């Protein structure tokens, strides 16, 4: 086999990709692919399979003489529970805007953070909140009420 001398080039010229570099380029590509593949797998790490959040379902006894239409907020829970002649219902008091806790008032609810106001049925009357406060699933047994913060029900649903 004869080797034809290549025309001399300046050291500053780019070298053409020769056949020999094909192997090098392929292995570089494979390495990059493998690293990327591993990385994508690792990206699942930040999301735990089971979240460490407290249970969404809880049971609570309503106070004896809770007047109709008056809110009862179980300590440490972001829920307001109401009881009247037609039954019991619970409304989430986590503001649908940015998650502050709204305060039950005579007219409905009021958010301290950016001034959203909600009517007694949870619908937005003022401010930046994009959605009404959701009604939550309740089930009543005697004086005890079980509330599921994870399940929303249609506005107006009451349980006896």
């Amino acid at each position: 086999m004869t080797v034809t001398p290549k025309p001399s080039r300046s050291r500053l010229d780019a070298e053409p990709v020769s056949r020999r570099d094909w192997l090098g380029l392929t292995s570089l590509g494979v390495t990059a692919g493998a690293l990327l593949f591993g990385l994508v797998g690792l990206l699942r790490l930040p999301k735990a399979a089971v979240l460490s959040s407290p249970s969404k379902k809880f049971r609570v006894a309503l106070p004896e003489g809770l007047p109709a239409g008056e809110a009862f907020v179980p300590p440490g829970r972001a829920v307001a529970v109401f009881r009247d002649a037609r039954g019991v219902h619970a409304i989430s008091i986590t503001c649908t805007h940015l998650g502050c806790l709204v305060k039950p008032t005579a007219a409905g609810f009021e958010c301290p953070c950016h001034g959203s106001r909600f009517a007694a049925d949870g619908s937005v009357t003022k401010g930046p909140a994009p959605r009404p406060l959701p009604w939550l699933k309740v089930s009543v047994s005697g004086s005890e009420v079980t509330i599921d913060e994870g399940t929303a029900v249609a506005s107006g649903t009451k349980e006896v």
Partner: protein
Amino acid sequence: MRASPGGRAALAEFRANLKAAPRRLYESAFRSGAPTTDRSRSTFVFGNVFLHLHAVRTHRWSLRWTTTLGLGVMSASAFLITLVTGVMLMFYYKPSPDLAYQSIKDIHFVVPTGRLIRNIHRWAANVMVVAVILHMARAFYTSAYRSPREYNWLIGLLLLVVTLGLSFTGYLLPWDQLAYWAITIGANIAQSPRELTDALGVTGLFDPGGFQRLLLLGSDVVGQEALIRFYLLHVMILPLALAALAAVHFWRIRKDGGLTRPADADARLAREPAADTYPVFTEAPLRTYHLAAVVRGRTPAVNDGPEHTLPSMPHLFYAELGVLMLTLLVCVALALVSDAPLKELANPSVPENPAKAPWYFLGLQEMVAFSAFMGGMGIPLIVLLGLALIPFLDRETSATGEWWGGPGGWPLVKRSALVGLAAPVAIEAFAIRFGWLREWFPAIPQLVVTAVNPATLLTAAYAAYSVWCIRRHQSARAGALALFTCFLGGFVVLTAIGTYFRGPNWVFYWSPADWPTH
């Protein structure tokens, strides 16, 4: 045993070596000796891995204080100060919801010098944010983003984002009421794309908002998972990212030919440095940088004599040291007169009222009070995108390196500042006085409120004004000047309203003295 003559000689040599050891240690570390000649002043720079981010010689234009106002070095100095004080705080801080608050209290009240260190850390963080924003403004107003510096402008933007991220993550660590509710709000801003996906009814299928919040908090609630994530970001990931980006930023300045200077800078400088400038390069060859042949682009002084440069050691380094000392002085002085705040222990059942983020986020919070998504994500992203595009849209070359873009620029900046300040005042006054869409039409769809609110209208007004400036001045640079100035004005007004004029329930008050007591 009798010592042989040979043994005595070896002992003498041993003693001499021992005596010479300190000097040899010194010489092995500092090979070129004291920087007293042109040659040793040069090796002083390029023989040191940290210093050689600088060029050996610095152009006299870069050394004028009106070129940079020292703001970049001030940002870097403030970062160094937070780094040192932050490591000291880590000796006592415990990242757990049960212990964090108490450990900050210990640092504040029990640990010797703890309060001072904590105050300096807090103040240096504030100084850093101010310095970075002003530094960006100076780079903008001297057109320093223009070719070949587009890339460094983008690195700068990343540095801005990381700086703000450091502040935000640090804010949660004390685990007091302020921290807890500011982070609750912040995490829900990350979730705010739901405002759109809910309105379109696709959240069940596609929920980037929920994903972002989960990524940040590691849970449904702000608790242990969130605290450890914020802690890790604050003490490790973001500082490392910032240090790496800063190294690229500094290196790039050198590779881009030093700092931006006007094309005729050489002619405008006095032919020789002032007579009392010492030392100047005396032995330097007329053509330096032999490597210039293989380095692409405009390297410093490829064809010029070195007469307009001075050795970086000492001229540049002493100036940098001066800025570092000044920054330290400012931070310590502020730390001595004003304590870092610490409210009551975080209480997830009682929102802080008003719940305010750190001051530089209060402009965002003001916009968020109209629409969570637009104010918290949409408009900030548009602003960042706009800033990133500036160097690619303004391809003009005239008056690069001049403050305000040369003659005619300053009146335009003044006029734009007026627009930038007046527009948000007017629009806020209207919204505060008359309310907004939801109050007039309670049944209005959320998408309309998201699209049309004071924050989006303000952005649109700024954009329209800038387009008008481009047409009127026949120059993209004029539009960029107008837009950047407007955004600075908007930032100032919204931040001021959020800081001074918003009280409980985010209601407008002329003064905190009028706040109702609760």
